């Protein structure tokens, strides 16, 4: 998969996560904001990294703003952001 532009998915509502993907030339960087970062931060980042790896992405900046999302929501939001970025749309 090739990222074409900045893309966002998700909301700031409870049980959701907002994912921003910015293609860049540097190595992968994942930044997380979450009320439960201390307890679940490593797990959330590992899950996001796994999806990014599966899609063969090595260079991108991923910003996550978590509002208590379950794993299936995190997966869906990351996949949506990747899809939007690769389609070249949704540059908000």
């Amino acid at each position, binding site marked *: 998969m090739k990222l074409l532009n900045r893309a966002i998915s998700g909301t700031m509502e*409870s049980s959701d996560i907002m994912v921003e993907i910015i293609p860049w030339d540097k190595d992968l960087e994942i930044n997380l904001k979450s009320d439960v970062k201390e307890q679940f931060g490593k797990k959330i980042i590992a899950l996001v990294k796994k999806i990014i790896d599966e899609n063969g992405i090595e260079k991108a900046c991923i910003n996550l703003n978590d509002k208590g999302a379950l*794993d*299936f*929501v995190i997966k*869906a939001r990351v996949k*949506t952001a990747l*899809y939007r970025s690769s389609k070249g749309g949704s540059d908000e």
Partner: protein
Amino acid sequence: MSKLRRTMLYVPGSKPSMIKDIYIYKPDSIMFDLEDSVSLKEKDSARFLVSEALQNVDYRGIETVVRINGLDTEFGQEDLKMMVKAQPNVIRLPKTETAEDVEEVERIIVELEEEYGIEKGKTKMMAAIESATGVMNAMSIAKSSNRLIGIAIGAEDYVTNIKTKRTPEGTELLFARCQLLNAARSAGIAALDTVYSDVENMEGFRKEVEHIKSLGFDGKSIINPRQIEIVHEVFTPTVEEYEDALQVLDAIKRAEESGSGVISLNGKMIDKPIVERARRVIELSKIN
């Protein structure tokens, strides 16, 4: 007995907070919506969200249904592609007007099942009928595919199409409801009624549920978990109905044991349809 479908609870496919624990309300079916409740901008994200939910959340054996966008929209094909892969129990077609509408979706499902290595015929379908043309074609729609588990009426679009609006009495829907119900029964599939949008009017809701139950419907699409209890209550036989049914089955048993050809109970003849109804009452009572 056949699968209970008294309540089919809508959940917008774009709302993680609702999707994650909707099963706690114990509807008979959960219907994830990709169509009217999802904005055009979020059609793609709803697809991913529902797909991941279906593959990762344990819905405790509750039937899962996904309402896709029509194939006449730019979203329908992609919805089908992702949903057949995610495997809800049933895919619900909106705004079905002809048997060909069902057959067209089925053709794509057959191809996708083959592509994904899913057992042929596993993906079931149901069709929502929401126009005068659909109502007039209800019979051919109901018999158009072995995958169809039921047909449902979508009243809001239908009443607009026939140039009227919904009333508390529901006279404007009587023809369509009866037409759908008879088509479903003739095809041996479920008949599901439309939503009742005023979630604050529980009295009006109960009256409508009693009405559609008396017409013969299997259940109703609902938009709020608060409506579940009323539907299940209305569809649960009363103690009196249960006791009457037990008496009927007892009379049958005694007649069979004594080799009597004619069966009567309290002066009334008991025949096959009465026995069938009594069995249904007992089954429903056991579930509740």
